[in-house]
């Protein structure tokens, strides 16, 4: 194996592929990054039996071959190389890397022990990469982090014709994002439970190209996997990950069908205000929101300790309402909303509130992203 490649192209591809390296590999070879030269140029791959990453990049290949080296080390090296072309050759049990006058010699790992990467399933459709990254970033806010409830650490991805729904919940809040895409077939219909962390990482890392291809295989033999493919640095980046097992709860019906109070607030003021007031909210206590006649009053703290309150302007339609939320959950939802105005819909103080964004105080709410949040209540 012998090839020559541009330093920036290599460094970017190596960093991308090294993201999914396992921190504590179950087998030593899984800490490796596989370097292969083919007719397409250079291929870099990592795999931890859950998630695989594969990047192709243009290179001048002199000799074909493959080598497995420590991914973490290669990423560190590539990040620090001078801006000159990089040459790599295999030399017995070592890989030598030359860049300008810098030379590195890396120990190889047994390449024949490295597992084969899963096949990318057939493409199901394509989506604009920026829209996809933004949508995923919004959806994952509500995903659970508790490994005791593995189903909730995933994002439910539902494909129905030309639209994709993303749903995530940790039992206390629920995010729902709708986006449109171009399915391969017009009557496409599928659903998958994708690990939220992998999905968020992948969507964010595939914004270099304009499109992301989504490939889903849920039926057929073996466990379902999902693949994402985008382009970057003159090559193709492809990630596959194993879908989570288990039944995602039926959550769509949790959105209330009606509301008794509808309030609109400037998002930035509300975020600032919640941050300030929650400074005195001790661990596990709520920030209280009281909506009444053009004013939203925020309160936090208890009589025995520090207290804070602040009022901001709000347009309130319907009944007055007072309810309390975990300040972090509230901020998570608010910051996920991109629009400058946030609309909050309530039924009762013990029922969830629905948050959505709007372009202005008068514009219709943008229901493509909705965040449902359960309040905190006194025990008795």
């Amino acid at each position, binding site marked *: 194996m012998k090839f020559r490649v541009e330093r920036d192209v290599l460094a970017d591809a190596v960093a991308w592929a090294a993201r999914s390296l396992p921190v504590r590999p179950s087998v030593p070879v899984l800490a490796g990054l596989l370097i292969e030269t083919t007719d397409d140029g250079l291929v870099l791959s990592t795999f931890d039996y859950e998630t695989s990453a594969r990047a192709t990049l243009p290179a001048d290949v002199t000799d074909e071959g493959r080598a497995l080296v420590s991914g973490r080390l290669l990423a560190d090296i590539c990040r620090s190389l001078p801006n000159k072309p990089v040459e790599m050759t295999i030399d017995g049990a070592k890989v030598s890397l030359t860049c300008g006058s810098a030379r590195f010699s890396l120990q190889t790992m047994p390449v024949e022990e490295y597992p084969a990467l899963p096949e990318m399933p057939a493409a199901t459709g394509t989506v604009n990469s920026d829209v996809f990254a933004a949508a995923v970033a919004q959806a994952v806010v509500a995903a659970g982090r508790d490994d005791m409830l593995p189903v909730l650490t995933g994002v439910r991805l539902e494909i129905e014709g030309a639209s994709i729904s993303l749903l995530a919940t940790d039992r206390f809040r629920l995010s729902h994002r709708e986006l449109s895409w171009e399915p391969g077939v017009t009557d496409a219909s599928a659903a998958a439970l994708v690990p939220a962390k992998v999905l968020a990482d992948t969507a964010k890392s595939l914004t270099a190209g304009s499109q992301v291809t989504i490939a889903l295989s849920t039926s057929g033999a073996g466990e379902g996997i999902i693949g994402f493919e985008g382009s970057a640095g003159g090559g193709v980046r492809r990630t596959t990950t194993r879908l989570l097992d288990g039944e995602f*709860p039926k*959550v769509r019906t*949790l959105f209330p069908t009606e509301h008794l109070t509808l309030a609109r607030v400037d998002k930035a003021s509300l975020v600032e205000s919640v941050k300030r007031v929650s400074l005195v909210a001790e661990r*596990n206590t709520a920030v209280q929101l009281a909506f009444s006649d053009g004013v939203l009053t925020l309160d936090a703290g*208890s009589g025995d300790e520090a207290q804070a309150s602040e009022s901001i302007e709000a347009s309130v339609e319907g009944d007055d309402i007072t309810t309390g939320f*975990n300040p972090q959950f509230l901020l998570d939802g608010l910051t996920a909303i991109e629009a400058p105005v946030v609309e909050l819909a309530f039924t009762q103080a013990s029922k969830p509130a629905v948050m959505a964004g709007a372009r202005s105080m008068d514009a219709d709410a943008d229901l493509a992203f909705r965040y449902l949040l359960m309040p*905190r*209540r006194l*025990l008795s």
Partner: protein
Amino acid sequence: MSPRDLAAASRECPILHVDMDAFYASVAVRDRPDLQDVPVIVGGGHRGVVLSANYLAREYGVRSAMPMTRARRLCPQAVVIPPEFATFTAVSSSVMENFRQVTPLVEALSLDEAFLDVSGSVRRLGSPYTIAEQLRARIYDEQGITCSVGVASTVAVAKLASRRAKPDGVVVVPPQSVTAFLHPLDVGELWGVGEKTTQMLNRLGLMTVGDIAHTPLATLQRAVGASLGAQLHQLAWGQDRRVVTPRRGADEPDKSMGADETFGRDTDDPEVILREILRLSAKVAGRMRTARVAGRTVTLRVRFADFTTITRSRTLGDATDVTQEIYQTAADLFTALGLQRARLRLVGVRMEGLLPRAAVQRQLVLGARESGWSEADQAVDRATLRFGAQAVRPATLLGEGRP
């Protein structure tokens, strides 16, 4: 000394230590004339311990906290009565109420003993000695049980004096006789001196309180440590706090609540152990709901057959008083121990970090039913209140006769 002399001697002794005589045993037999003249032991279970014994039983060497099996061997003819805590608590609170009619400065130490500072009541009710006798008479009259009172100018001496007064008496230790009273006593009688410290002091040749008093402070501190040494030295000279801090025994909000169960025989059956954990969780949760508190930390205690004891705890996101949540956490802790046929002698469940219920918030869960375990618990509590502790129980706990 005549009562008149005692009254005069007690003028400078405003601290009373009142201790019920064989409290549980006295309460248990007061309505049972048939048990007046036989040895009686209060305690329970095959492996239980003696909670209290009347003076007839004590003559045979029966002591509280002694294993029941040993007590039965010492005094086979004794009548054993299971404890009825509800009655004990009721009697205790009316006795404490009697104390509070004498002075607001009542420091309840447990169900059956308290310190009283009567310096403000002397003008109204007479000398501390007179007050002590009045109290004893009233308690005997109202509750049919006797108590002993130690009268002194400091807390520690009052406590020692009440022990000398037992049963059914009063001992006054005026300030000028404190050293004469203290110095002949065994070192083990001092507050803060247990079995271990007694042994250590005895090894140094310190047998009586007087020996401690006449040991240089530095020597004493080298032997038992700086703080205990200083404390013992002061106690030996009768120097101690004179302030009684009003404290209500059971009404004071506890920082934690827990319950233990020693198995009838050691067991390694996870089903039996988990069932016991459920029973203890229900017991603790019920007590928490009665006291209107909720807690965040669940602690599981496990004692193996060889008496090694371990505890494991987990802190929940929100404070709870719900039986199922406490049980689930305790059961998870037990499962996480990964015990393989280890024989257990005891399990215990404890809730820590208790807060008044009114201050506790809960994060509501999406799609949860409007009424859940919490409401079920409240319904159980109401049923229990009317029909007794056996009325409603988890099905797993049916069919065992224990309360």
